């Protein structure tokens, strides 16, 4: 199965079963403040490690290229 087929299939599933795709048990609180807090913290805790690892990877790549450039001179 090609990557494009997987993406299209996933989008079709999201369109047919939006409730399943939006499977967050705490995102339907009656309080707006509470719902917003859950969504914000979920996004925060999901993206933070990715950002840190990605940032470190990019920095190491940049530093490595700088050192390679120094060696070439």
């Amino acid at each position, binding site marked *: 199965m090609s990557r494009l087929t997987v993406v299209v299939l996933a989008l079709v599933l999201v369109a047919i079963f939006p409730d399943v795709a939006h499977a967050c048990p705490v995102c339907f609180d009656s309080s707006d*403040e509470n719902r917003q*807090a859950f969504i914000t*913290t979920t996004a*925060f*805790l999901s993206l*933070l*490690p990715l950002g840190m690892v990605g940032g*470190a990877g990019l920095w190491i790549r940049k530093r490595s290229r700088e*050192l390679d450039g*120094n060696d070439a001179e």
Partner: protein
Amino acid sequence: MSVKSATYLVEQRPAPVRGETLIPSGVLGMLIFIFTEVMFFAGLISAHTIVRSQTAGQMWPPYGQPRLPVEQTALNSLALLVSGVVLVLAWFAYKKSAPAARIPLLISILLGVVFIGFQGKEWVALLAEGLTLQSSTYGGFFYLIVGAHGLHAVAALLGLIWSFKQLDQGKLTASQLGTVSAFWYFVVLVWPVLYWKVYL
């Protein structure tokens, strides 16, 4: 090939050229540790945000709980931030000449002591006003988050004092200073986020 000629070849082989280190091992280890610490504080902040959003009537601090000393702590936060900036200056001074880092490193340590000392004074006053770990979730989160940061600040300060001692004896390496400094920068940079979430 005889043993003698093989030995000769090994001896004549040029030594491998060691390039500049990408990142010192100590600093890399400290960065990995800091990643875990960031997630630890992110978890505490997230829990605090959710509990705060669930408070009846959005009243924060809850009824009957003392107000945190926002203004005094802002000044104290400034001391911590300046300490971080001075430590950056200490790093640049060290790169020029190791002994030149003594004064900025000492100033950074003193500002760190001021921060921790003021935090201790603040805790004593808040305890006297009735804010304890058990008094409310407000008190519980305050002591947990600010206390966890305080413990990290004390540990990082001990590291800075150790590095100052090493520097005094002429034994401090750039890797050691970088490792200790990375931890102090973490303590300095995480504090404004904690101040914003807990005090404001």
